[in-house]
């Protein structure tokens, strides 16, 4: 609201941030752990007076320099660039709060560059002791960079007592600082071992290759083992809400947890395989690729979880993902969002500008996380089952129903405008407050979806003699009937309503279709926002009405991500009736 929005409907900001962040994290942690790996391995070579190890370290340093300094350094800049594009308000808050932390990190970055250049270019041209010292300085500076960034990143998840006093150090040494620092350090050492495989598999001498693969494997395995309890510690200090999200309330975290578990298992297995079965004569590049993919999966899942665990905030308890400050919500709601926001053209919602005002509300309150017909969190897919009325009800309690969604901040007219934009602007659905009668609803749907190309009067003779079922079936296969016609991708209830209307054109009297049953309306309002019946059907197929009815009493126990149904018992009965009928289950 304070800033303009970079509108790229297909990609959306979240995907770009995730892409850049995961790549950067994968390289930048290597830049830390790899520093220790280099000096320790060089020391091993010096101690064992094994020149082949020194040659390996020199080769590995070149790879390390090209990967971490160029790619790692610039993807770090890229993260800064992209977060300031997608979350300018949050970036500004972080920069202003921790400017001297970032500035100190820049000093360590400078020391890193100088040290790494000297370390690389003076192999064999400097005495061992000084060369090792330069290596240790590199590692110290790189780890200090991690130390500083770790404090700022974790502040976003657990701001702790900073919320009360805005003190730099309280924000920096926040509740997740230490567990995260340990976890990240072990991860960085683990990655160093994994990257060691890459250089090692390119070594020509079989004996050295065998030795360095085993050495890297042990290095990775020990670090990996230590990272697991550190990760557990990290989760255990999360605040209750975040722990709930990590525990399964957030569907994206549930997916990330699966990726982490699979990656961890694969990583452990393949690394052990590399240590035990590493052949002296053959190269093991395929296994190395698997190691890298699994390590990236493990690391990426952690980062994804950390990002998702602070939702609906970008800075926990301070600023929502859409840049609205928590402390300003009440004031904005009173005044109206559009009157408070800077980058809008519609200051007040009117009948004429409703859709345009709704679009502006979408841009400033939803687009930070939702693409429009794009790759991630597509708003069109997520809302396809909702009517205008259902959308309004959903938006009114969106944060209460699904904690990880920020509340809609605005007055009633703004809420309606946003609902109108999504329902009519994106889905071309009718803007009727509540489509009670199936016949009326069908006409509205027809007017919105079909009438632009063919009037009802033209269609009427073509459908003479058609049964309602035939019309209903044809709505599922429109492109097959005529390739010029787009597919009608609407919920089943909408198709039913429209076929009722179309049938009534040639069968006067049948238009007075029975009012939509209560169960269907309740389902649409309460369940469809998250899962259409087509998704639910296979899950409840064969369930008795009693089983469905019982499940409605304990939704959150079935899935921590689902809110409990708070309606009356009679409503639940109707809902169970409807569902069992739709699913074709036993009464």
């Amino acid at each position, binding site marked *: 609201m*304070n*800033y*303009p*929005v*970079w*509108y*790229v409907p297909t990609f959306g900001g979240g995907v*770009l941030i995730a892409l850049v962040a995961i790549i950067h994290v994968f390289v930048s942690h290597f830049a830390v752990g790899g520093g220790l790996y280099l000096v320790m391995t060089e020391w091993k070579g010096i101690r064992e007076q094994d020149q082949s190890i020194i040659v390996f370290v020199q080769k590995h340093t070149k790879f390390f320099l*090209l990967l971490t*300094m*160029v*790619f790692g*350094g*610039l*993807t770090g*800049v*890229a993260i800064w*660039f*992209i977060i*300031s*594009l997608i979350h*300018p*308000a949050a*970036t*500004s*808050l972080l*920069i*202003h*709060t921790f*400017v*001297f*932390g*970032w*500035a*100190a990190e*820049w*000093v*360590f*970055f*400078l*020391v890193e*560059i*100088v*040290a790494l*250049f*000297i370390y690389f270019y*003076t192999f064999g*041209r*400097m005495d061992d002791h*000084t060369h090792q010292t*330069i290596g240790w*300085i590199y590692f110290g*500076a790189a780890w200090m960079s991690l130390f500083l960034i770790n404090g700022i990143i974790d502040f976003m998840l657990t701001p702790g007592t900073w919320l009360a006093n*805005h*003190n*730099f*150090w309280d924000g920096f040494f926040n509740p997740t600082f230490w567990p995260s620092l340990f976890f990240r350090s072990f991860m960085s050492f683990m990655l160093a071992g994994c990257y060691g495989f890459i250089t090692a598999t390119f070594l020509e001498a079989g004996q050295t290759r065998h030795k360095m693969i085993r050495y890297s494997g042990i290095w990775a395995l020990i670090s990996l083992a230590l990272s697991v309890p550190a990760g557990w510690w990290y989760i255990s200090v999360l605040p209750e809400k975040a722990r709930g999200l990590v525990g399964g309330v957030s569907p994206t975290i549930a997916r990330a947890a699966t990726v982490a578990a699979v990656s961890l298992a694969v990583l452990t297995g393949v690394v052990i395989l590399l240590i035990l079965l590493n052949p002296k004569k053959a190269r093991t590049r395929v296994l190395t690729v698997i190691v890298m993919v699994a390590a990236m999966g493990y690391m990426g899942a952690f980062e994804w979880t950390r990002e998702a665990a602070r939702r609906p905030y970008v800075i926990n308890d301070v600023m929502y993902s859409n840049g609205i400050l928590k402390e300003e919500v009440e004031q904005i709601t009173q005044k109206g969002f559009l009157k408070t926001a*800077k*980058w809008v*053209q519609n200051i007040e919602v009117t009948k004429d500008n409703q859709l345009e005002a709704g679009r502006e509300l979408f841009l400033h309150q939803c687009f930070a996380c939702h693409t429009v017909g794009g790759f991630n969190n597509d708003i069109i897919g997520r809302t396809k089952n909702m009517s205008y009325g259902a959308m309004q009800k959903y938006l009114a309690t969106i944060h209460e129903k699904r904690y990880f969604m920020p509340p809609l901040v605005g007055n009633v007219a703004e809420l309606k405008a946003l609902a109108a934009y999504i329902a009519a602007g994106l889905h071309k659905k009718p803007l009727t407050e509540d489509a009670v009668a199936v016949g009326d609803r069908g006409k509205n749907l027809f007017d919105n979806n079909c009438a632009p190309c063919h009037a009802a009067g033209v269609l009427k003779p073509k459908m003479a003699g058609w049964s309602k079922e035939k019309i209903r079936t044809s709505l599922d296969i429109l492109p097959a009937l005529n390739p010029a016609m787009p597919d009608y991708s609407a919920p089943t209830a909408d198709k039913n309503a429209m076929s009722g209307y179309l049938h009534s054109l040639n069968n006067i009297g049948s238009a007075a279709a029975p009012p939509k049953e209560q169960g269907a309306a309740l389902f649409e309002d309460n369940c469809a926002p998250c899962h259409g019946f087509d998704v639910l059907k296979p899950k409840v197929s064969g369930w008795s009405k009693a089983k469905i009815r019982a499940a409605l009493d304990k939704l959150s126990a079935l899935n921590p991500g689902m809110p409990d149904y708070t309606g009356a018992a009679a409503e639940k009965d109707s809902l169970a009736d409807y569902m069992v009928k739709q699913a074709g289950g036993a009464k």
Partner: protein
Amino acid sequence: MNPASLIPTADTLTAHWGWFQFLLMLTFPLHLFAMNAMLGTALSAFICHVLPERPYRELSHELSKALPFMVAFTINLGVAPLLFVNVLYGHLLYTSTVLMGLFWLAVVPLLIIAYYLAYIYDFSYIKLGSLAVYVVLAVLLLLMSVGFIFSNNMTMMISPASWLRWFATPDGTLLNLADPALLPRYLHIMTGSLAVGGLCVALYSSTVLKLDSSLVKAGTRLGMQLFTWLTALQVLVGTWFLLTLPGEVMKRFMGNNMFSTGLLVTGILLAVATIITGYKRKVMATLLLTIPLIYVMSFIRDSVRTGYLVPYFDMTKVPANMQWSPLVFFLMTLVLGLVVIVWMLSKLPVFRKS
């Protein structure tokens, strides 16, 4: 719509604004030095490929070894001033960044490609053969295109009137091309950079490469010629830039603001002096005059920004909530970091021999 109503609210500072201004003006010229050396090295290496004499071929090989260092330090030394600009002008900068998001993000891949090409040019110089000239030319053009993107952002952030275009084009594809000062400003900084870069090549040749007299001669001649001619050209480009500035901003340098006018006069005098020493190929004297010249130019640039923002923003009015300990922590880190860097450099074989 009044463009001023679009300006986001600036966040509270954690130290007096003067600290950030001081740190910005201290670190930005350091970035300029590195950036100038980088561009000058790339340009000189390119010219060396075109010149037929043998020492120039060898000089380009020597410059290829220096180029990756220059890129690394330009990027690193750019981080600090960009950080302090974020603090002082973040609300303006982020806005223009969103408007040109696509181009702004393009900076990263452009730099990554340029950086890797610089390493290919260095590590595979011999192997590249006749392709080397194209590689270094690509590096130069890529780096100059990054400069153009920066010029757009730095001018768009101080021109809220241009921000209204976002309502029609919110997809991050806006540039500040309609600003008449954009092109002369960009050319002004590029001409200056390439000139100072030439001086750096002369310095590099006469110090690091001093064991080979033919290289010293070739490098000093090429570098100082580049410096002198480009600085002379700069007088014209600079005048053009001055004349395209909005009236009120231009008048700051014409007597309306004594400090800014004094800066411009000092800058012109220093530039004329460097042209003379440059013409006489006196490397150290030119360098000693150029260092203050770059600082003066940085202050002039800052005054232009302040002039543009007079109707919109006054950094002295941004609220501050002073927290000393993080500032002290940073200053201590900086001192410690510099001590460690000096110690490490002192251990380099090249310095130990001397």
